């Protein structure tokens, strides 16, 4: 297995969806190719850092405001279908 073949299998390798025979070849390649070993390690860290970080804040205050606006629209339409058009416009103001 060369580096190009290895790269083609990277997604399946990360997702644990790789054929056992290919997995042996992938591991053999990783044992001999430092570049690919670095790519695996840093790609894994890329996924981990995004998964673990709070890239965008979603404070409780915002959640409560949006939820209240959603439920207000749902209840209004549920009771008075004729005002559906008015209710289809977002009502919660931006922070």
């Amino acid at each position: 297995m060369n580096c190009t073949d290895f790269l083609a299998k990277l997604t399946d390798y990360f997702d644990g969806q790789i054929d056992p025979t290919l997995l042996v070849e992938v591991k053999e390649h990783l044992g001999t190719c430092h570049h690919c070993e670095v790519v695996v390690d840093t790609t894994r860290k890329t996924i981990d850092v995004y998964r673990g970080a709070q890239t965008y804040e979603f404070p409780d205050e915002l959640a409560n405001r949006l939820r209240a606006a959603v439920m207000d629209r749902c209840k209004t339409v549920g009771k008075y279908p004729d005002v559906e058009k008015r209710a289809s416009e977002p009502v919660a103001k931006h922070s």
Partner: protein
Amino acid sequence: MAATQATVAQTEAQDPFDPTQAIPPEVLASVLPADVAAEDAAPIEIHPDIALVERAKAGDTAAFEVLVRQYERQIFRTAQHITQNREDAEDITQDVFFKAFQKLEQFQGNSKFSTWLVRIAVNESLMRLRKRKTSKTVSMDQDVETDEGSIPRDFAEWRPNPEQNYSQSELAEILRKTIAGLPPGFRTVFTLRDIENLSTEETAEALGLSVPAVKSRLLRARLQLRERLSRYFRQSKEATK
């Protein structure tokens, strides 16, 4: 008395539902519908969302509110990752749940309720991007043909815990800037698969893409992000000496 005990013993011996014994297939077939019995009678797990959706369909808005609470964070994050705009993400979050409420009858339970919501969120987000960039069409296919970042070029090792060198807000800024540079088609796949933790199949379903297309975009998204983050997280040469 002896006659009664004998009758009980006989009854127990004939009881086909002794829990300590395997149920004979012919008994199973007699008590289960044919299609269930044929499937080895495995217990069927019903997702708790299904019951809430059914109650909401019947007009129970409190049940729908539980669903909103459960998925509002995921929908907001997805919208913000795709649109890269906070105000748009706020509007989209409202619109997604309102549209879902209006179209609840269309949800048949063939997929997870969360995947159905994410699909609405993706469509709404792409529509917002199109509105914002009036001169340019925005779609899941935009810029995905680029070869940029599909071949690794940076082979520097990273610091063992790269995120520890930055404050939480600095790190969030780096991550936002980095993912904003990806084409929307890559950004969306990475967001659903790696940040929101949808399976490859769920991501494909939410985006209306094939599984191989998701895998290909995911690989390139991951490699491009890796390449771009490396400039912040790489170990300095002095430190490795």
